[in-house]
């Protein structure tokens, strides 16, 4: 029941925000925040009362037994970290949009529903229910871009929807195939994992799953929706896109291929690594030439998430652990960069790097915060980003030194785009005078929270590693057992 509440609380938060917002806008914000906090409290309760084994908690409710569909929820360290991340980012975006006046109740509802759907993704182990949440996630995200976005919002929202909806078809087809070909009509992932699926079938099924996950990740050449969506989305939308939606793709890749199709993974993992290696260089190179600050950060996301892809496909303990840490670290650093760039956009109404500059003098607090997350994007030691990337590289050295070297090269290129972003905004003379100078307290709170996360997990990664350990171990064991 507690696990259901983790999905239900944010969902109800959205419903109540919408209902309460009709009467009073403040009530909508409070409803959203309260329900998200209830979600976080539930999560704390789950850990208090959970097991210390492979799964912290599992639950199973019949839904449509005749169709073989049941609500199977389970939480382990990986899911726990991601659910905590999604609830926390949801709360953060609600705080950030606290004073928004444009259809605020609907905005808060959309934020809550994004959180609810992604929590569903992180917790579901019945494949049909998983697909349900996977597709449901698109709707509030689509609304966020299409309603509250910038000038080209409709086109960007459509692009986002089309890319992801088409990719979702691969997942849907694979899931139905699994259900239809099993000994009994069942979509239970735990039961599917025990099946002996022929390798050829595994490869096709894995391709179907991977299509959905890679588009969401995004891995080139399926990344084109991301720069547009990030650029056009409002700040809170960009934060949820970078912090949550991309992570659902990474989570899917992390969880299901090794669990359900380990033999297929052995065949396809080298291709995945090659794609990731290509993507990390490609994303970094394209980022170097951007003039729109948000677009630049979007392309760095492509580069960093490609590192995650490499880590997952590396399939060894270090690389998987590193991939998990990069996921969390990137959620913090990319969210923070979007927040800060959004703050600039609110004040000077441009994100064009050629027109910005001089915030060193006009906004020192902003400059300090920007410097920290600039360092995180470069994977400076001391930030969680470094730890994750270093672990991925270590793992890749065990698998294939070429990919490890390519990742190191991308670390060098990261300085080129990082300094471009940083010095064009912070250094130089101000070309546009900001209206109100420095970060407000409402922005400072989330920035400090994200900074603490980045540094805490960078310097004391034990919390994160402890959580990821079981999921990493079971993935490695499953892959090793299937090794040819």
């Amino acid at each position, binding site marked *: 029941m507690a696990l259901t509440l983790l999905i239900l609380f944010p969902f109800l938060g959205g419903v109540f925000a919408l209902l309460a917002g009709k009467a009073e806008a403040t009530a909508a914000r409070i409803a959203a925040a309260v329900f998200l906090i209830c979600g976080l409290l539930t999560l704390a309760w789950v850990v208090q009362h959970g097991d210390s084994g492979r799964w912290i908690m599992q639950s199973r409710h019949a839904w449509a037994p005749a169709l073989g569909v049941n609500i199977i929820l389970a939480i382990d360290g990986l899911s726990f970290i991601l659910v905590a991340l999604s609830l926390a980012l949801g709360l953060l975006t609600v705080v950030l949009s606290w004073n928004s006046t444009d259809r605020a109740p609907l905005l808060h509802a959309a934020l809550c529903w994004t959180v609810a759907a992604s929590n569903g993704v992180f917790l579901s182990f019945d494949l049909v229910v998983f697909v349900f949440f996977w597709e449901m996630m698109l709707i509030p995200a689509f609304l966020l871009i299409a309603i509250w976005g910038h000038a080209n919002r409709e086109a960007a929202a459509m*692009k986002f929807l089309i*890319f992801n909806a088409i990719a979702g078809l691969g997942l849907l087809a694979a899931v139905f195939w699994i259900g239809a070909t099993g000994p009994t009509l069942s979509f239970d992932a735990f039961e599917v994992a025990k099946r002996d699926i022929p390798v050829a079938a595994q490869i096709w099924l894995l391709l179907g799953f991977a299509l959905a996950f890679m588009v969401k990740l995004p891995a*080139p*050449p*399926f*990344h*084109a929706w991301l*720069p547009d969506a990030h650029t056009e989305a409002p700040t809170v939308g960009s934060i949820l896109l970078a912090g949550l939606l991309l992570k659902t793709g990474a989570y899917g890749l992390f969880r299901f291929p090794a669990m359900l199709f380990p033999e297929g993974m052995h065949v396809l993992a080298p291709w995945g690594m090659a794609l990731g290696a290509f993507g990390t260089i*490609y994303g970094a*190179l*394209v980022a*170097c*030439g*951007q003039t729109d600050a948000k677009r630049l950060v979007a392309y760095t996301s492509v580069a960093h998430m490609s590192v995650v892809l490499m880590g997952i496909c590396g399939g060894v*303990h*270090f690389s998987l*652990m590193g991939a998990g840490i990069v996921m969390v670290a990137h959620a913090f650093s990319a969210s923070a960069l979007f927040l800060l760039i959004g703050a600039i956009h609110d004040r000077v109404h441009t994100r064009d790097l050629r027109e910005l500059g*001089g915030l*060193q*003098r006009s906004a*020192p607090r902003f400059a*300090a915060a920007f*410097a920290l997350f600039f*360092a995180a994007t*470069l994977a*400076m*030691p*001391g930030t969680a980003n*470094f730890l994750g990337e*270093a*672990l991925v*590289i*270590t793992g890749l*050295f*065990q698998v294939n030194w070429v990919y*490890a*070297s390519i990742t*190191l*090269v991308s*670390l*060098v290129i990261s*300085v*080129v785009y990082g*300094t471009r972003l940083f*010095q064009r905004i*912070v*250094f*130089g*003379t101000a070309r546009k005078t900001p209206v109100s100078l420095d970060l407000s307290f409402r922005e400072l709170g989330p920035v400090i929270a994200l900074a603490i996360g980045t540094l805490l997990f960078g310097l*004391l*990664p*034990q919390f994160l*590693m*402890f959580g990821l350990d079981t999921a*990493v*171990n079971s993935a490695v064991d499953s892959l090793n057992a299937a090794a040819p």
Partner: protein
Amino acid sequence: MFGIVWTTDLLLLTIPSIALTGFMLLGLDPLRLRAFEIRVLAILGGVGPLIPMLVFATECFHGSCIGAVPIFTLVVGESTVALALQLDPLSALVGLTVSIIGAAVILYSVAYMAGTALGDLRRFFALMHLFLAAMLTMVLAGDSIVLFLGWEMMGLCSYLLIAYNTTSAQAIRAGRKAFIMTRFADAMLLAALLLLFLEANSVRLDALIPAGVAAQDGMRPIIAALLLGGAIGKSAQLPLHTWLPSAMAGPTPVSALLHSATMVAAGAVLLIRFAPILAAEPLLQALTAILGAATALFGAASALVQQDVKRLLAYSSISQIGTMMLSIGVGAPQAAAAHFVVHAIFKSLLFLAAGDIAHHSPQGTALAALRGARQRKPLAFLAFLAGAASLAGLPVITAGWWSKEAMLAAVWSAGPILWVVALATAVLTAAYATRAALVAAQPAPAAEAAQDDSSDTGYTLFPLAFLGFGALLAGGLVNPIIRFLGGDMPHAPAFTLAVAAIAPIAGAVLALALAPGAADTPMPAARTGGRRASVVDRVLRVLVIQPFVRLVRWVNGQDGGVEDPVGTGPARLVVWLRRTLAGPTAPDRADRLYKRAFVLPFLQLVRRLNGYGSGVVDPLGNLPARAVLRLQRALADALAPDWIDRWWRRIGAALLSIWTSARRLQTGRVRDHGLAMVAGTAGLLLLAWGYSWH
């Protein structure tokens, strides 16, 4: 979870933490500091680390180094990652040097940066503190993660400090260049450390180094090469040296801290630390020696032709660290460590003294700005002389001589060729050091003599005096340092010692002979006819310069055509040196080569990927969308207008034609309507008549 056990050894943490606290208080400014408080805090954070460092180092010098101090332990799979600091002889020595130089530079900066805007002052000292903390962390690191943390933070701080003047495009460019180039080196070091971690299954340095030495399957040469690559990039050695001369765009105290004891010297410290791995690979050790020797000679020759005092000192740093690399490469890392200490002292002294003399000078940091130092700033002038003497390595009375002697003796044992190169470096070093000193000794032109100058305060005098005495007297420490690090004083035949002692004097004489006409000519220009040459001068010309110029001319294939080969010889020599070593314009040849080989192709690639020129932005990302669009267009062409729709359209067309023909009846004329009415009535009557027949 972390297993922190409290011991007094954990106080080792205070050394970097004090500077780090200074960074936090100044950087985040929770207390809303005023100028005076900023200064106090700057001094506390800058000098503070020296106190625990002194205590620990003294203990260590007395033979009880505390060794590794574990801080906490992480478990990654089957590996244990134990983060630790350590205090062994090397870290005690280097740590003490760094904290002394750091304290001196920060004390000096308090006066140097007076009059800066409040926010900039805070930023300056915050970054200096962070930088100091990073270097101390790197030096005291007991494991590879902490080592890399310090190493990499230095790169970030150097970027922010070189670009301290954020309104100067040149400074920003220089900072970015330094960051990117050193990051390239950092990536190599990271690879080396991760490979060592995989070999040792531990990150502790005392486990990593033996594991690296014992590494099999061809891993050891790779690791050693990567370590060397990392050190070369950070230490601005050939061929990755081009960032350092540009980095002089930063304020002078920044140069004094970054380019004497920290940052550039960090590469040498790294190699001294990992010397056992290098020693196990003779080929790479030889490569280190050769690169070091080449860099030393190149740097000294380039320093000779600089017109900017900071660029001169930058090339000098490149050259001096080259000699350290040479010493490491011939298997004498202890001598290199001794020279590290001595070099840190005299190089920071030179930067600080030159900065003090040329501060607020209308000529900026041009060499000419040093003129008149004797009158304007006598103490800074003396300090500069002491530093230059130590850099030149004047025998016995300067510290530089002692450490150079030790290194030269070690190089002798590795073969005469490297020794000759090292000797030539010593001659050139003495020549450029003397040249700089001679410029400083010149009286200022009358126009500049009256310029206003702030008088020296204790903040500048104390560091200058302290470092000045150090530059002269620290020579007595060279032998103890080498012993302390577990090495032997290298021995070499007496004649080599004698030759090595003559080398700096020869260099000084050479510089005198080349006559510092005006500092703003590229070098000691050809002498003009007016002055009468002394006897020594003439003897030198005949014996030394003339044969050398002949050789040069022969090498260049030039003969004849010049009226006064002897007179113009030195100038030609310089022009030749410049052309070959430093390129025709100030940025040296390698710099331009890199721009053409790496920077421009990179920019081109980025431009192309971003659609400059072709108009296609992010070609790959648009591939799926374009494919879909093309498919849609193809389908549309085949099907449009669609089959069913075609039938509907036909019906529509038929209706339309009926309507248009029917419309013709509607003429609106009365007679037509009348006719139609008559016709219709007639027709109806006919019809009725016809029916009536039934």
